[in-house]
């Protein structure tokens, strides 16, 4: 176990360094600047924005992949759950009277923790409720039926937020001042970016520990493997699936909160686009695989930034999907997905 964690950490560290070098190389390709220090500085700045975007995608992708793993449903409403998370955090912060950066560090930490807690719980409940009303009745229906209700739920969530809050973007409070920065190799990076990355990593590790080491986690894994068998073993299927939705949606809620802090701008329809990207990330990593989802999220963030860096901003989306298609052509079950051969 320790060995496995150590190996994983080493691989992750290696990937981080390699992608950093890669980004600097791409920056050189894109800018063709003669000044080496300029290239390194730009590349580093780009690298950190890729990590931040990737972390958000990864957190959303986790929810997709967990739900898919357990009931094989592409939960198209998940992106909108993320959006609702951003708005819940917005409502919490503004109702407490915080519209901008908080100077006092202890207060900031307290408010953030409170925000995370409330957002994640509210969103978890919302996710479980959606499952209860829109998906559970269709568990034995044809497989595309819940896909359509998912699209319907997505429309409903969007319209409700639009009508109740705003039909145009809303400035979300950026509690962590962007003036806190650190300089690395000539690039000035907001501390917030690092914070977001760390929060995402902590949440992912917590999820891994939960799924890997607790009774509930075991119930989830066994349900994902074989629902009937798990049921025979005394696993409460309905509760397990509800908990999966709860956790996935709570993570999306955390992602929403982070997104609001980072972007400072939220809008009722941001979920669909972000959700689509996150879903792509989940598939890229190997859907059903939580580590893969995280990996896919970071990969998509990286590709998006790389596209901009190399001057291909107009082709950003096309590039993301081209990479996806290429990966799937050679690894039909994603990067880390189980490459199931044809079984008899």
């Amino acid at each position, binding site marked *: 176990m320790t060995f496995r964690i150590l190996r994983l950490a080493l691989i992750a560290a290696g990937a981080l360094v390699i992608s950093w070098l890669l980004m600097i190389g791409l920056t050189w390709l894109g800018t063709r600047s003669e000044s080496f220090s300029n290239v390194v500085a730009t590349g580093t700045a780009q690298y950190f924005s890729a990590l931040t975007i990737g972390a958000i995608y990864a957190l959303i992708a986790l929810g997709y992949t967990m739900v*898919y793993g357990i009931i*094989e449903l*592409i939960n198209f409403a998940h992106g909108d759950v993320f959006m609702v998370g951003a708005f819940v955090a917005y409502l919490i912060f503004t109702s407490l009277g915080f519209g901008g950066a908080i100077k006092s560090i202890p207060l900031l930490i307290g408010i953030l923790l409170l925000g995370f807690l409330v957002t994640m719980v509210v969103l978890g409940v919302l996710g479980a409720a959606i499952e209860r009303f*829109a998906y559970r*009745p*269709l568990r034995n*229906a*044809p*497989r*595309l*039926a*819940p*896909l*359509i*209700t998912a*699209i*319907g*739920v*997505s*429309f*409903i969530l*969007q*319209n*409700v937020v*639009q*009508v109740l809050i705003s*039909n145009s973007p809303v400035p979300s409070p950026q509690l962590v001042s962007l003036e806190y920065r650190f300089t690395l190799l000539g690039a000035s990076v907001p501390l917030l970016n690092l914070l977001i990355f760390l929060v995402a990593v902590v949440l992912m590790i917590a999820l891994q520990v939960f799924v890997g080491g607790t009774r509930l986690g075991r119930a989830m894994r066994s349900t994902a493997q074989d*629902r*009937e068998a798990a049921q025979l073993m005394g696993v409460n299927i309905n509760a397990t699936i509800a908990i999966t939705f709860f956790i996935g949606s709570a993570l999306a809620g955390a992602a929403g909160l982070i997104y609001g802090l980072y972007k400072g701008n939220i809008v009722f329809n941001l979920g669909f686009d972000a959700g*689509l990207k996150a*879903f*792509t990330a989940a*598939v890229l990593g190997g*859907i059903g695989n939580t580590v893969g989802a995280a990996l896919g999220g970071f990969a998509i963030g990286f590709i998006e930034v790389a596209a901009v860096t190399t001057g291909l901003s*107009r*082709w950003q*989306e*096309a590039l993301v*999907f*081209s990479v*996806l*298609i290429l990966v*799937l*052509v050679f690894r*039909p*079950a*994603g990067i880390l997905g189980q490459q199931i051969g*044809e*079984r*008899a």
Partner: protein
Amino acid sequence: MTRQRGTVEDSETGATALGSTDRLFDFFGRHRSVAIMAAMLLVAIALPLIVLAPPFSGFNTQGVWIDNFNGAGIYVLLALGLNVVVGLAGLLDLGYAAFFAIGAYTYGLLASSFYGIHVPFWPMLIVGALVAALFGIALGAPTLRLRGDYLAIVTLGFGEIVPVVFTNSDALTNGTNGISGVDRPSLPGIIFGASNPVPFYVTMVVMLTIVLILLYRLQDSRLGRAWMAIREDELAAASSGVNTITTKLLAFALGATTSGLAGVFAASRLVFVSPDQFGFTVSFTILAMVVLGGMGNIWGVAIGAFVVFIVQSVVLKQLTNFLQPLNIPFLSSIDFLQYQFLLFGIALVAMMLLRPEGLFPSSRRRRELHTAQGDDLSSPQESAEPLT
């Protein structure tokens, strides 16, 4: 299979007991193409008359309704094509609008002053369908090894890439501005105009009739059975001698064909083609139409597409204008335009919860529901059944 069932029922009820209506059904059961033609003719005549009566007349005038039917017809074509891919062959395609775009652009480029080429509409119907079919094969080929939802995301990717390519190829497709001044169809003595939707209507009805007949024939042929076999169990299909690759590619190609037709028709009706008509929301709408109508059932899908289009593009859009003059307290003062998403979303969820199999489940599904008892010995394999 309809024919088959007809004969079985005959032998059960006894041919002597047939009434005149039964005889009619029997006739149509045997000559399905004639039945389709008769039904389409009936529908084509009835629709413009129905809308003269309230409440439909409150929404739009007859002329506009007919034009709306033309729009609905486009989506019916699209849904019929997607039904081949998703409903029959069981391949979840989330980027189907790409072929619609390709059909429309084929016509837009070859029948406008953009390149100065003006190929007439009628041959272009076939050209557009063929080009879309080719692209169906080209975009289908990389997905052949993929299963289920991996296939879905790759097709979604193609659905995203195709409009991006049209948007960014300024020199070739006029980029984001699209191609305006696309030719309308022409026939001697008949004007295809914006204010005269009837020629378009007739064209659409004829196209739909032909497509319906062809699809029914294909569905009951060796190819149709191979599609369904792949949908049910790809491995068993291959082990029964079905070449899964050719069969899947044919499904993509045939699915794309009808959307190519739809694209050509749409471009000539709108006299304008631009990338923003083919976003992924179009793909999702078509998929919703197929599932709501009842996957795999050709008539069901056609009706589903028709209903969803009319609800989305006519009823929800005109609801406010419709209710206002009625002076119903409260209802008349709501601006329904703001709640379109909500209403459409609720409609999607409610319909799926009430009828998980779609509005008109295919006949085999109905039979399954009626005879579902007594298969407690069913094999565990059933839960792994793809898509359907």
